[in-house]
């Protein structure tokens, strides 16, 4: 079997409240006193199951397994809710089995080790979310363990904090459905700037479709490769930053038009378009991140979400952070790509501070803002941003 959890255990994050003993909230632990949760994620085209362990002796979190499946639609198409739901429904049981057998290779009844099931409550696509929620509820009923509903965005952030040890970074969350600049203040993850229309990943995906790039492994990756072509020219596109916010839909319309008008005649190449689009979009993102840093007086940046995998974005961000004398957290698959372990990570933090979701409240929602979640695991009275 291929290992899906290659990462070392990470110490409990500096800056969080101390983890209360499990008995304080009647959390069932295994015979070693460890808290182990399952995280189920399926808000977009990826479905993943992660098993995460908290060891009270070493005070560290460890991902025991984290298998994942991705639905890749045919070229020229996006992933539609119906097909994506079918995909998730087809794979979720096998993923749970494989996650459990990898996490507990010699345990006869792995369910006895589990303290809770965490699942994505939102935001995301309705069908896929509900498919995974049903799996989560079923497991919780069979094993008689509590459920913890998790905000997908908070999952990215918490996994990022744990994996990098960054206690309080400015977070740029960029994915197919989200574009937000986030900083923690007064008990919540506040959104300092975001897109006022479509998400960055959505813009890239749709552009890739327009110029006929493949969705395998991902449209954004193929744009990145295309943009590397030597001699790619920089074309001027609209550049839309409104205060802390950005807008992508106008740029998308513009570049789609350019592709229609000029690609066939050879006035521009695909590489030119990809290169210029990346340069423009990422410059906008880096700019608003820098604004948030200046605003909050922070000098550490963490990029999470699928678009965070883009090397050029990483490079530009690193350049900006260097100019300001700050630091950029390294890219990591645990928080850049959707997966189960990150849901388990945010879920276990809530669980350890006494938060579970009643069965009647385990519904999913497509709209669930990052700042709706109270991060009870972080001290809210400490004011860092003035």
């Amino acid at each position, binding site marked *: 079997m291929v290992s899906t959890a290659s990462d070392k255990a990470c110490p409990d994050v500096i800056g969080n409240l101390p983890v209360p003993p499990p008995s304080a909230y009647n959390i069932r632990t295994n015979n070693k006193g460890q808290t182990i949760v399952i995280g189920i994620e399926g808000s977009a085209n990826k479905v993943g199951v992660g098993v995460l362990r908290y060891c009270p002796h070493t005070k560290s979190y460890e991902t025991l397994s984290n298998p994942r499946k991705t639905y890749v639609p045919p070229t020229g198409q996006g992933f539609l809710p119906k097909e994506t739901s079918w995909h998730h429904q087809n794979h979720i049981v096998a993923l749970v089995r494989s996650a459990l057998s990898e996490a507990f290779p010699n345990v006869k009844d792995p369910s006895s080790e589990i303290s809770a099931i965490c699942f994505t409550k939102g935001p995301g696509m309705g069908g896929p979310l509900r498919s995974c929620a049903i799996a989560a509820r079923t497991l919780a009923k069979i094993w008689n363990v509590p459920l913890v509903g998790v905000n997908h965005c908070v999952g990215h952030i918490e996994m990022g904090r744990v994996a990098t040890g960054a206690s309080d970074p400015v977070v740029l969350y960029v994915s197919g459905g*989200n574009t937000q600049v986030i900083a923690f203040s007064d008990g919540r993850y506040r959104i300092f700037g975001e897109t006022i*229309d479509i998400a960055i990943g959505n813009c890239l995906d749709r552009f890739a479709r327009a110029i006929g790039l493949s969705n395998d492994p991902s449209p954004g990756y193929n744009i990145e490769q295309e943009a590397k072509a030597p001699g790619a020219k920089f074309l001027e596109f609209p550049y839309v930053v409104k*205060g802390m*916010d950005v807008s992508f839909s106008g740029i998308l319309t513009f570049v789609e038009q350019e592709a229609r008008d000029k690609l066939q005649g050879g006035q521009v190449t695909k590489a030119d378009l990809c290169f210029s689009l990346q*340069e423009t979009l990422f*410059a906008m993102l880096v700019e608003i991140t820098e604004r948030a840093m200046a605003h909050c007086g922070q000098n550490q940046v963490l990029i999470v979400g699928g678009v965070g995998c883009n090397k050029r974005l990483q490079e530009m961000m690193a350049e900006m952070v260097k100019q300001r004398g700050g630091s950029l957290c390294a890219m990591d698959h645990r928080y850049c790509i959707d997966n189960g372990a990150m849901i388990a990570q945010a879920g276990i933090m809530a669980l350890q501070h006494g938060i579970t979701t009643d069965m009647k409240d385990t519904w999913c929602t497509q709209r*669930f803002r990052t700042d709706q979640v109270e991060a009870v695991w972080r001290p809210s009275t400490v*004011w860092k941003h003035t």
Partner: protein
Amino acid sequence: MNSVEIPGPPVPSYYNESWKLISQGAEARVWLVPNFIESDATETATSSLASTVICKERFPKAYRHPSLDETLTKSRTKAEAKNLNRCRRGGVSVPVVLAVDLNTKGQTIASDSKSEQENQRNSACLFLEYVHGETIRSFLNIEQEESKEEPPSKRQKVDGEHDHAVIHKKVITRVDAYAEKAAYEVGATIARMHNVNIVHGDLTTSNILIRNPDIPEVTSVNDWKPDIVLIDFGLSSTSVNTKKTSNHEERAVDLYVLERAFVTTHVGSEDLVKEVMRGYKATCQSSDSVFVRLAQVRQRGRKRECFG
């Protein structure tokens, strides 16, 4: 933050040691230039302006593509100077523009860091009147010891830079009658700016100054008139209301950005936001349409939530 050594890119070629870096924001470096006007210049011409001025230097951003960088740097500096002058002509209190240099050559101080690419790019400098005063942000922030309360007059003074993290102190928002009056005047000033068809584009409480933040103990609210100055027109634009296009959208976004800046940086400032809106309504010529649009913008704000 205000370290002695100068971080980042080369400084302008006319820089000398008397320049003081007062802030390095996201967009630009702001220098305090003590001897901008030579002392033997005619006294009458300079009497109203102190010889100390501000140099706002948009330095090259290494992360941006050179041609994008140049376009943005030049166009933003140009727009800023133009819009500041338009505001001034329209009776809005803003800093006076003294000089503009769109092609400022750099000089490297530290000889060890030789980044050739950066040296080739030029920055753009804007020389502005130095406004004595305080940001609304620090005006509204009252620092408190965690356990015991302090009188509101003990607020901290900050000249535009960011505070460092203070663990044992708690910052609360000033919401007395003076703060409300200042908020009202902020709204009125923004309205006057909108009346001359300028939208600011980046209204935060750090970009609004108050010239007279120190209120003598004896002054009653009625005798005190806050003197509000808008600064940082780096993202400003002009938008004219014609039959074809309406500029209510941009104006509403201006108000929305400010509203959010208030709510995210000043906890419990909801009443102050109401005062801002009241001041705006009383002064803006088309406030009704702007408020209708603002309601839509807010709605859009709530719904632009996430998928995936």
